[in-house]
């Protein structure tokens, strides 16, 4: 992931936001979608994505569905009810963070 330290804390929020929009997604699809939206600027590494998905699942924010696609099994993730509520919270937190950072980094904008 580009400049990973800055993005690290937002990985879960990015995943949840995508799932909120798309309904359900599988791991590979998430990595590709992020790449596509950010035009390759932001790449979610495989080694970080699955741990994040599994953690969110264990916390009850995501649930899984498995389907046979082609000749293999595919695991889809989607938000649970509590996951949907959590997404709203985390997004507003992130937005607030961005606002604060903008004020800090570029104080003139606040006038």
């Amino acid at each position: 992931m580009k400049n990973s330290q800055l993005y690290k804390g937002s990985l879960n929020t990015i995943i949840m936001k995508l799932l909120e929009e798309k309904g359900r997604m599988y791991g590979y699809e998430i990595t590709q979608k992020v790449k596509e939206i950010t035009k390759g600027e932001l790449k979610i590494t495989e080694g970080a994505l699955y741990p994040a998905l599994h953690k969110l699942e264990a916390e009850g924010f995501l649930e899984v569905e498995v389907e046979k696609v082609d000749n293999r099994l595919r695991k889809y993730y989607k938000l649970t009810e509590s996951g949907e509520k959590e997404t709203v919270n985390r997004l507003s937190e992130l937005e607030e963070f961005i606002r604060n950072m903008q004020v800090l980094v570029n104080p003139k904008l606040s006038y």
Partner: protein
Amino acid sequence: MKLTSEQIERLYQFTRQHYVEYYDLQTELTDHLANGIEAQWEQNPNLSFEEALQFEFKKFGIFGFMNVVEQRQAALTKKYHDLVWQHFKDFYKLPKIIGSLVAIVLLKLFLETISFSEELIITSFVAILLTFFGGMVYMKYKNRRKTRVSGKKWLFEEIVFGKGSFVGYIYVAICVFNKIPRHFENDYTIWIFSIMIVLMVLLEYIMLVKIPKKSEEYLITTYPEYKLT
């Protein structure tokens, strides 16, 4: 170009070679690698399967699948602890709380009336620990046999059947055990030990009987693919 069934089998084998023991994780990683390989073939159809696979695997970094496996284990252990805790809380809600409280009071009264209460407490602690340890070993053995037949290992199943952190449980018990005074000075100590014994028995009942009994149900909610395979 799509992957053949043999190539999918090779991917399962590849994950096993890279220390992914559990079928649930193998399946997810296999699908991931397969998607990556197919995407590469779209760009460059001449690429060999093995080359494309190595390229995809490199994306997981120098530790390969290790981090994914470790974190999955941590996540599912947490899930298991939450499950134990939920069951435990059930015993402290109506109507079950009546039973729990009555058990504590009866035990306390009993310990008060007998002359060998210290010995009895020590024996009960040892007995509880031995049963717990024995039960865990037995469950592990039974599960290993089942795994051998099916050829598939499920991480959550292993945690439920003996891989849960019973080491921690034993540690707590030993600490308490060391603190048992030789002679009880007051009423207060007997209360504490009555509560402790009832709590330990309850925990043991949940971990050895209740959860394993419903294991199939928990496994299906954790792994929808459990039914498909």
